[in-house]
């Protein structure tokens, strides 16, 4: 016991599976209990798995450019299903075209995601932020009490700035397939 459970997967009709496996290995080595749902995961499946495992966070990946449509209403569905304080992250190639990342980030934050990442990030930093956010929402990072703390405080992580240069374009390197 004692590990925070997180649920990961690639949303929608997206089959990019390599990055997903890397994320599983990475977060496991960071001390999280990772429930990996693989590719082509629906919002409902993310939420079902989070309920059964009492997960602290859901990390949604999307690489094929349709992330915006796939993620629409994700936070609302979490609220409907009683997953109130859960931490929601999204990352990858979230939209097609040359939208500046700040615009993309704004869009997904408005949908209720706590943090938004471009396809090129320092995973170590993500893990650190994840621990912080879980602590914030659940009281303590390891098996903490649930508290009422609602989402959306403490947004805009410092590293969002570095993301801007990415422009949601072809990512440098980390893209599977």
């Amino acid at each position: 016991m004692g590990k925070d459970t997180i649920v990961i997967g690639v949303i929608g009709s997206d089959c990019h599976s390599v990055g997903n496996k890397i994320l599983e290995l990475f977060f496991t080595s960071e001390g999280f209990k990772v429930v990996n749902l693989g590719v082509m995961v629906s919002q409902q499946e993310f939420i079902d798995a989070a309920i059964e495992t009492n997960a602290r966070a859901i990390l949604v990946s999307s690489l094929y450019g349709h992330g915006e449509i796939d993620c629409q209403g994700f936070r609302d569905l979490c609220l409907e299903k009683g997953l109130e304080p859960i931490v929601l992250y999204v990352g990858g190639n979230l939209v097609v075209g040359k939208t500046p990342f700040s615009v993309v980030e704004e869009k997904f934050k408005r949908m209720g995601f706590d943090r938004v990442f471009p396809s090129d990030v320092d995973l170590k930093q993500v893990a650190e932020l994840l621990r912080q956010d879980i602590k914030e929402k659940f009281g303590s990072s390891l098996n903490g009490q649930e508290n009422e703390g609602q989402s959306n405080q403490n947004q805009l992580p410092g590293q969002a700035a570095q993301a801007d240069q990415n422009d949601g374009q072809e990512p440098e390197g980390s893209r599977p397939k």
Partner: protein
Amino acid sequence: MKTVISIDIGSTWTKGAAFVLTGSGFELKEKTSVPTTQDNLVVGFHETLARLLHQDRQTPLEQLKGLSEIFFSSSAKGGLRLAAIGLVPDLTLQLARLAAMSAGGKVVKSFAFALTAGDVSELEKLNPDIVLFSGGTDGGNSKYILENAKKLQSSRLSCPVVYAGNRAVAEDVLNIMKSREVLVTENLMPEVGQVNIEPVREKIREIFLKRIVAGRGLAEIVDLFGSQPKPTPLAVFELISVIPEFYEEWSDLAVIDIGGATTDFYSNTESYLETDTVVLKGIREPKVKRTVEGDLGLRVSARSLFETGQTYLEDRLREEGFELKEMEEFVNRISSRLDYLPESQTEKKLDQILAEACVYYAALRHSGGWREVYTPQGRVYVQTGKDLRRVKAIIGSGGFLSAEKSTAVMAIPLRKLRTYGEEKKLLPDRPSFYRDRHYLFSVLGNLVEKYPREAASLAVASVENLSQKGESYD
């Protein structure tokens, strides 16, 4: 030469068979059946045993007992009635239902998430034999479990509760449900998607033996023989599990058993083969699987079959030139007289179409499906449920299919089921059809625990291949 006797106490018939154990395996010596004596099962059991041993009916059971090795099973009270409680419908609840059915039970109702006051009073009304209580992965959700435990504790239910949920709160559940009989077993889904239904099945079986069979005189037989009966469906389940262990050519098989009250579908085949273009959604179902359909049957359940199966029946009746009305009258006739045998050619045909409908809906519910999805990376199939495409042999058992010599009753509905709505059903690609010619599967199943090789061997030897007669499936 040793004689081994197996008796199956069914809901309408008590069937028995005597086998001779030779060096090479079992040989069927003789078979008999008598009507099940509802108020005291021992009477019918005694008579069957006496007949098989060629003894006078007056010979006391104690004496008969010494004459042969005896095994028995019982489907008492038309099977075991379970209520399943899970958390998420597609995950723990789905597994709870599967576990209950593969243990030989019938799921009377299932409940997801938190039980409401209405759910609890419905449970009380249903008065199941067992409540199977699950939910949460190990170390996962506990909120719903504890909430439901409190509600079960304050309910008026009297049956035992099998707890197979989040292990982390098993002790809390025991504490909350102090005044109840709660049996804790391993979590049926310790991790998301990980299937662990064996321990639950075993627990359900134990309860079946101790509690349910205690009535109607079976305790007397248990005392006398010092051995427990098997639930009939479990006997068949064990036989299906063991056949491919000894006969590799019989790997990937399915059995359909149409009875008066239920239709059982068993399969023994890998449920999902991972490839780049097929993605499995939901749980990975077990290799050996049984589903039982309480609304599909040829006598007791004929009326509910008529309702459930309306679409299929209308289609087939039109093809065969019958009116729906004729079928309705026939169904009324057979459901008021359960031992009714079809008399005319017309009635025989109608009975056959009813059996087809049983096959159609049992297969629909047992098998999984594929949906085609076009993604930016190409075409992908999304699979839900169990893939039966590799099944090579389909064996018909039960009173009707054991006697049915044509493949049509199984082949026609399976062919029609290939596409169902948007879904391609994952049915056997090129199966051969067989029948359990002497209706031995349930009695042979009783012998599996002690004589696995011999039972499997006779099962394989006693089926008849129906597909050889030139009837093609495609």
